[in-house]
């Protein structure tokens, strides 16, 4: 980060007392540009500032040369854009050192040496727009000893303004930084002579280590958060007996379920064609006699549509017996999604009057019915289906299976679309009556639905 030791030596040699006295400022500047690469300019500048701040350059010629070099590092660039612009402003306008009479001298961190009038004049010329060739041709001593004390009328306010603006853009945290190197002269003079080479040692130490950039700024106290405090976090181990969960042997091997044999065969038939009344009765009796038989008759959700189409009565009974089964939702979803027909509607209607079906299921079924009616192409079939749906809906409403409010808009739109059909008009009237609160909905036995549905065929 900082200059290497050899680079530091080069710089210190440039500023060597004899060197600065012997050469013009221009010569030294050219030397500097020859000896340092552009990438190192900031480091060189930082060293120069440190030398000035810590009062490590004994002779005024050295100090003036340092200031000149600091400026010439960034020769050609606008002064407000160079990193050390503030140094010059500080040099020209040092802070007040005397607060009031008698008080100790104020001393600020990073304070720069006080310049004499000719020096100030020189610095002002340096950073202003005037041509500098003439003044740089002089040696440092010539400038210091010149008697040009008249205040120059160089206007620096533009530069000062630009710098102040730049400064104000910085956050407070950056503006409050002070250099961490604090002068701390020993009070009692040491009896030994100052060893000059030792001085070079510590200058080198200041310039070539991180101390060069070391700064201090006020710090916040940041408290680390406490550990999460929570209950029952560690795992308590209880006996789990993993041995209990072991591989099972199928005990039903070669033991056909004789009890269900006949029922099974009847069911196989029931998927394909309507059973005779006698067969139906036999099947239902067997199912009634054994509550678990229903699980063993080979019915699966995928077979349900066939059963509904061919033997709706059986389907109803079987579904009622499966109500407690874990699979019932799957049966329901098959029922909702199967093609709409008189039979499926009959099954759903019976179910709604017998057990509590999930509301979403009933709603989904109604929506499916309505959309089937709307999409069907065959005009004759459409009329038939619409009449069926209307009667079905009336039955549901009268039996308070559904809450009309939740489906009101959908059903009403349906009635209006098919208002040419008598049943739809009737349903519409029923809706209107409900809306006006005319109908108490306490009458109408549920049994008559089937007759009505049949009547619509």
């Amino acid at each position, binding site marked *: 980060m900082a200059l290497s030791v050899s680079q530091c030596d080069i710089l210190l040699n440039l500023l060597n007392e004899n060197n600065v006295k012997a050469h013009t400022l221009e010569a030294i500047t050219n030397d500097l540009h020859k000896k340092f690469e552009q990438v190192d300019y900031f480091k060189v500048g930082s060293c120069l500032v440190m030398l000035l701040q810590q009062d490590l350059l004994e002779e005024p010629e050295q100090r003036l040369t340092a200031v000149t070099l600091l400026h010439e590092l960034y020769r050609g660039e606008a002064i407000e854009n160079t990193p050390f612009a503030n140094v010059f402003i500080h040099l020209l306008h040092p*802070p007040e050192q005397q607060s009031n009479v008698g008080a100790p001298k*104020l*001393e*600020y961190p990073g304070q720069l040496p006080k310049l004499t009038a000719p020096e100030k004049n020189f610095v002002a010329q340096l950073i202003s727009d005037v041509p500098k060739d003439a003044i740089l041709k002089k040696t440092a001593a010539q400038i210091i000893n010149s008697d040009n004390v008249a205040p120059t009328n160089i206007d620096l306010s533009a530069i000062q303004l630009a710098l102040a603006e730049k400064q104000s853009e910085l956050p*407070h*945290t950056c503006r*409050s930084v002070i250099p961490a*190197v*604090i*002068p*701390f002269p020993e009070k009692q003079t*040491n009896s030994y002579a100052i060893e000059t080479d*030792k001085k070079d040692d*510590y200058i080198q*130490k200041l310039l070539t280590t991180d*101390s060069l950039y070391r*700064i201090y700024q006020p*710090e*916040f*106290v*940041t408290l*680390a*958060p*406490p*550990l*999460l*405090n*929570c*209950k*029952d*976090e*560690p*795992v*308590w*181990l*209880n*006996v789990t*007996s*993993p041995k*209990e*969960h*072991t591989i*099972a*042997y*199928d*005990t039903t*091997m*070669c033991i056909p379920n004789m009890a269900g044999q006949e029922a099974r065969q009847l069911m196989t038939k029931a998927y394909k064609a309507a059973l005779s009344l006698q067969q139906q009765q036999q099947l239902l009796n067997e199912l009634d006699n054994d509550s*678990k038989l229903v*699980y*063993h008759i080979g019915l*699966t959700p*995928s077979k349900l549509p066939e059963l509904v189409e061919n033997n709706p009565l059986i389907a109803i009974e079987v579904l009622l017996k499966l109500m*407690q*089964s874990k699979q019932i939702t*799957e049966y*329901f*979803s098959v029922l909702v999604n199967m093609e709409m027909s008189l039979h499926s509607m009959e099954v759903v209607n019976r179910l709604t009057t017998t*057990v509590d079906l*999930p509301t979403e299921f009933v709603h989904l079924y109604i929506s499916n019915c309505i959309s089937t009616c709307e999409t069907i192409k065959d005009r004759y079939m459409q009329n038939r289906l619409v009449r069926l749906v209307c009667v079905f809906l009336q039955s549901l409403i009268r039996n308070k299976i559904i809450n009309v409010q939740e489906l009101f808009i959908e059903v009403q739109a349906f009635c209006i679309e098919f208002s040419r059909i008598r049943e739809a008009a009737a349903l519409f009237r029923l809706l209107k009556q409900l809306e006006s609160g005319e109908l108490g909905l306490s009458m109408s036995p549920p049994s008559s639905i089937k007759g009505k549905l049949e009547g619509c065929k």
Partner: protein
Amino acid sequence: MAEKEEPEKSMDCVSETEREFAQTALSEFQFGNYTASLQSINKLENRTYDLKVAHNKIVVEYFKTDLKATDIFQKSLTSFYTQFNLRMDKLDDVDHCVAHYNQAVLLYHQRQYSQAIRIMERVYKFIEPMDETLAQQVGLLLVELHMCTKQLVKASGLLSFLENQLFNNNPIVIKQSDKTHKVCDKEVKAKTFTVSNTTIEQFKKKLVIYKARCFLMMHSLNAGSREIDILSDRNGKIIATTFLKANLEYLRGKYEEAIAMLNKLTIEELDSSEVGESYLVMQYNNLGTIHHAMGKPHLACHYYQKAIKADTEFNQKQENGDKPLFSLGSSKYHELVYNLGISLLHAGRPAHAFDCLIIAVRRYHRNSRLWLRLAECCIIVHKESNEVDFDIQRKQKEMFVEVIGSNKHQKIILAKNLSKDKKYSVEGEPYAVPVPTLEFASLCLRNAYLLLPSDTSSSPIPLLLIPGVTPPAPPPSPGPAPSVPLSPNCVAALKNSILAASAYVCLCLGDYVVALEYARNLLRQPRLLGTHRLLGHLYAAEALILLDNISDALDHLNPENVKDISLEYPVAEVVEDKQNIETNPSPKWFPSNLASAHAVMQYNVAVCKTLRGQLDQAATLLKQIWKGRGPNCKVPALIIMLVLYIELQLGHADIARSLIKQYSLPCRVNG
């Protein structure tokens, strides 16, 4: 359709001799004569279409190896599935349940619980038509799986179903209006009790143990206590009861009793070479858990380390030859390492804790709290305790790093920063390397936040299903496995801790925009501990300063904002939560009292004023803080440095020098 019926018919068509063979095979199997059983099954070989014969054949072959040839069994089971055109993700015939169940058992012992649950939920749908013995096994396995995945509500629901449904088959709830439906109570009862009474008794006993475990995990102590009483009445002394009783006492906060119970167990009782799990490991682990709760983390670590040793020995013993199925998953290593990590963290050994928890997180990577714990390890490695910020003696040694030169040119170099919290890394260090750094902590905290258990975990079961195919169950909402689930209060506390830690880590890493977000989010939380409120304001203020918004920062630093610095929710609220259990070590934090906390806030106010250039005001405030210091009010050690700074900025170099002289070691500075 027609093709499918052909084998079905012939499966039901069984000759008399075939039936006899099958019966012999079953009874030989039940007596444990697997060779004889296998011989009988082989005689049924001509029934190639009969999947039950094929199934039982591989089952008996597996039993013949003492359940050790698990790999072979898995292979045969898979080829059995292909042979009979079965699919693992589809189940629509009760006859296929056994095979699916067996697959799930394998997965359970291999600790692949979620996959096992997916299978078992399909099998469970057929629990009614299943034969009773299998139904019981299916029920218990599913309960165990739910408990393994800490889905306790599901587990307890299933337990009550098993209790009611399997024995007192309730008739279907029929609407009152329909009187035509006949309910045949008689037949129902007659059918259900086909299983012998002893089997039922045994099953009931198992149910009681499961219920007790489940209730304790749910922290329903009274219900749990009832089940434990039933258990000890019926069965006398069994080891499971002892552990459950100790668990109950532990949860009640009666640690001494719990320790006494566990210590009473004799070596003979703890011998568990046959059961597939080590009682010794349990004893050590549970003793560790109790000591942790008592606030003795070092002792707890000692017990956990013993448990880990015992666990390794137990599993090595069985390494000779193949392990039987039931001890495949017997190692409790990950749970033990997790426990050990938590205790090490509390014992102030964060680096070791980190090493343990990083092992545990490989298995429990969906545990939000575990990720937070990892981050806490990183934070403590970074900053052991806040006490350093208040240790004036130690800080004053660190104030000056170097003295350069001598005599007239003596220079003192101030420390760049006294507080060591900030660690702005310039090199792009990879965050994902699992080492206890703040970078890794920020990653952990992000995980922790994302994995916070949400309230809307239960997704509704879709109505539209493909028949027979259960859609893949949504992954269970992330929980604190292996620990028991969190109460809403604990989730709130967890969230607050994650936010606080995130804000701190972001500040330390210099990510103050994000830090401000976290701090504000923390302050918005409805249930905030006093400590978290303090931290929220402090972090927000510091982030705002760095964003150069000093006036907003000063609002946050108003001491009125913080009225207490409690680390626990008030008792009244805890009771509301029905969490009457006490198993957490008493929390510790520095600063421990409100006065010190206020001193910190005031100090930070002084920093704000200093930054603004209001040096005189800041100096007055600092004097005030300094005067207020005492045994009950610690003040930040940075205060001296700030005073020094202010004096320097005011140009009072002499005062600054005398301060330096006063607070640095005389031998280091001459003059």
